[in-house]
């Protein structure tokens, strides 16, 4: 009897989980479906779901009209660059916070995180002016640095929680064994924290990839990544839904595939080291 109840419950839970999953996934699914419709079908009322004439025309038009590869390369450069740069800065920072904490360490961590609560638009004006003065507006390098700074608090937090799980005695052993600080981080800490560092890399790559506010405001033609590519197809009149969907699908495809193959790491990353 008990077993029957458990099975029923399981089935119910599974159904609820699927329902929530589909609800979350639906906008993405709808975007993908719309990208294969004609512009007329895309705005048809009532909407057509699966039974329409599937066409690749939108993809052809989008490809023809804009250079997808250039946007893709910009996205890869900016997301990858900002993540790697962030890791290089965050590893020593997280090391010191995890292993030689001061009285203020917790406060600093909280303060860093609090910068994420600031509305980005609040600092748009000064950053925009700095970019103009430095002549790095619409440059990949400038955007890389900004996105790195935006995500740095999260990178430091994540690495900090992973490093906290590493027993301090192992690092002390390395010190006794003659390892310099650099060697200690390079040969002992980093290899032991690889799973944590990998999920941090992944999550931040995705965050940087999806970042739209700064990429739209600080780029024009040169450094524009895929977010700008999508935006270029949105028009207030809503005339190009199908093409916008095709552009969106092309923009999210790489990250969707990356996410699919690294689900395990991502879950670990998103739970911030709470799950061992």
């Amino acid at each position, binding site marked *: 009897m008990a077993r029957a109840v458990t099975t029923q419950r399981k089935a119910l839970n599974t159904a609820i989980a699927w329902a929530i999953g589909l609800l979350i996934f639906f906008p993405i699914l709808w975007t993908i479906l719309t990208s294969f419709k004609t512009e007329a079908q895309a705005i048809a009322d009532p909407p057509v779901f699966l039974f329409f004439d599937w066409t690749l025309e939108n993809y052809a038009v989008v490809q023809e009209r804009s250079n997808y590869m250039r946007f893709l390369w910009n996205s890869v450069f900016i997301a990858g660059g900002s993540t790697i740069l962030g890791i290089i800065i965050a590893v020593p920072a997280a090391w010191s916070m995890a292993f030689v904490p001061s009285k203020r360490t917790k406060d600093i961590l909280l303060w860093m995180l609090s910068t994420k609560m600031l509305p980005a638009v609040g600092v748009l004006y000064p950053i925009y002016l700095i970019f103009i003065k430095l002549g790095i507006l619409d440059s990949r390098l400038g955007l890389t640095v900004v996105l790195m700074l935006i995500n740095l608090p999260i990178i430091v937090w994540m690495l900090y929680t992973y490093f906290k799980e590493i027993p301090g*005695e192992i690092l002390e052993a390395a010190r006794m064994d003659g390892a310099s600080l650099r060697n200690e981080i390079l040969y002992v800490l980093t290899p032991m924290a690889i799973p944590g560092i990998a999920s941090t890399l992944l999550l931040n790559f995705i965050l940087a990839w999806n970042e739209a506010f700064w990429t739209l405001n600080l780029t024009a033609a040169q450094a524009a990544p895929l977010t700008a590519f999508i935006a270029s197809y949105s028009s207030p009149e809503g005339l190009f839904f199908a093409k916008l969907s095709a552009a969106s699908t092309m923009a999210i495809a790489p990250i969707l595939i990356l996410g699919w193959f690294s689900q395990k790491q991502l879950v670990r990353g998103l739970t911030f080291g709470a799950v061992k």
Partner: protein
Amino acid sequence: MGRIQLNQVQKKFGDVEVIPPLDLEINDGEFVVFVGPSGCGKSTLLRLIAGLEDTTAGHIEIDGDDATMLPPAKRGLAMVFQSYALYPHMSVRKNIAFPMRMAKIPQEEQDRRISSAAKALNLTDYLDRRPGQLSGGQRQRVAIGRAIVREPAAFLFDEPLSNLDAALRVGMRMEISELHKKLATTMVYVTHDQVEAMTMADKIVVLHAGVIEQVGSPLELYRNPRNLFVAGFIGSPKMNFVEGPEAAKHDAQTIGIRPEHIDVSTTEGTWQGTVGVAEHLGSDTFIHIHGIPGCDPMTVRASGEMSVVHGDTVYLTPRADQIHRFDAQGLRIG
């Protein structure tokens, strides 16, 4: 060489003084054991010697050179940790090689030292395994191997056996003692287990609340404990303390008699008492006796043949030449 000297070494954590200024000398080749209850500062003292903690005041000399400000790696000491602290992502071979790799020792020399350490520690078959695939005892051997290959001036052991089960602990205890005889290198060993201290040490340092209570050979401490703390800490089962009129008869505030220095009889003796619990170990019988004035219960070590049970009346006679006398401050008299 491995002579370590502490001069007025003091350690504070914030405002809390865990080790008041102390002096200590550890001679070359000695096996010195720091022993004391948990929280007595023995591990902190070891970490000060290792350089893992900074001294608040005082000087640490290693082989005559001031090492107070030197980083751990520059002190020429090797440490074995309670948790083994092996590098989980490296094979046993790489774990043992790590300190030599850091010291940039040539590969052939590394291989030679690894194989000789592995042979000495019975690790030859496990060199390519990861620490996670080894038992506790094997892990501890790897940690010792990693220490040996550095050819340090002294070995520091921080409660290395406390994570092992009882049987393994006895075995490892002997292995470490044998290693000391073979290498003749200074070893400083921290433990809270007085049996380990008694069996392994050339010299025991008894610590209590950061203060050195007594330094001496195991038998010196056993025979002539300087105060009540040392008397109670060294020896197993622990010394019986008798206060009141019985102590006054010996012109002392407290007298101490070890369980093995009391004769027990079912017919006659100085004190009369009732058996509470009798623990039959086969070789010995430990009897806990109630009703002795000034000491309750009193523990007595009798021969294994002694058969008494709960409620029996027994008579106890302390051996006159084995009575330790202490004054009101708890210090030894005479």
